[in-house]
């Protein structure tokens, strides 16, 4: 069962997973106002996921939080799944603090959900790209 993203490879070299799914630029690029949340479209059939990797590109320093929301309105992985103190400019950043507990993720991502980028800075943040890869087993 795959989400409505792109199946990039049958094998993820970083884990023992047998597939990984690239959700693409699931959060539209552009300026995110101070304190605001930029939500991705809803993804369905996320299935079994045992590892996730996030990449973002931003134009300024800021503090951001990623989380996954299982509909309707229930936040999982915690609202500080990914909370960087700073973002480097113009470079791809692998997320830190990614949960690696497969059992937790497989429970969370069993259905539909969406992802959000929360700009917790007091200035707008321009997000060029937010790519989320989900690695299944």
């Amino acid at each position, binding site marked *: 069962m795959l989400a409505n993203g792109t199946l990039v490879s049958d094998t993820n070299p970083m884990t023992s997973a047998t597939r990984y799914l690239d959700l693409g630029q699931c959060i539209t690029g552009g300026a995110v106002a101070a*304190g605001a*949340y930029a939500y991705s479209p809803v993804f369905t059939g996320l299935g079994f996921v045992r590892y996730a990797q996030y990449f973002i590109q931003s134009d300024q320093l800021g503090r951001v939080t990623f989380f996954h929301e299982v509909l309707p309105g229930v936040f999982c992985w915690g609202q500080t799944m990914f909370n960087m103190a700073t973002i480097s400019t113009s470079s791809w950043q692998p997320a830190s603090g990614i949960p690696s507990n497969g059992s937790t993720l497989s429970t969370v991502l069993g259905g539909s959900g969406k992802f959000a980028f929360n700009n917790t800075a007091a200035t707008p943040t321009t997000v060029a790209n937010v790519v989320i890869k989900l690695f299944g087993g």
Partner: protein
Amino acid sequence: MLLDSLAEHGQIDESGNIVLSRGEDGSMQVVPVDVFTTFFGASETYDELIGEHTFTWNDVQYTKTAEELGYKQVFDVWKAQGIIN
């Protein structure tokens, strides 16, 4: 009340957040009401909203305009749609 006007125009989502923009693909940008109130207080009109606001955010005090917070374009749209005067 600004929140009443936003609700009448469908700018409050199912979680009670203020909708700032919507994309054709279902993406959207929202801000929680308490965060919005922190920045803009009891401002109701366009002129009040786009002016300078002094607030405390993450234990730091700031004085910023709506443009510096990234909200001016939103308020321009709201004014054009008759949500605010």
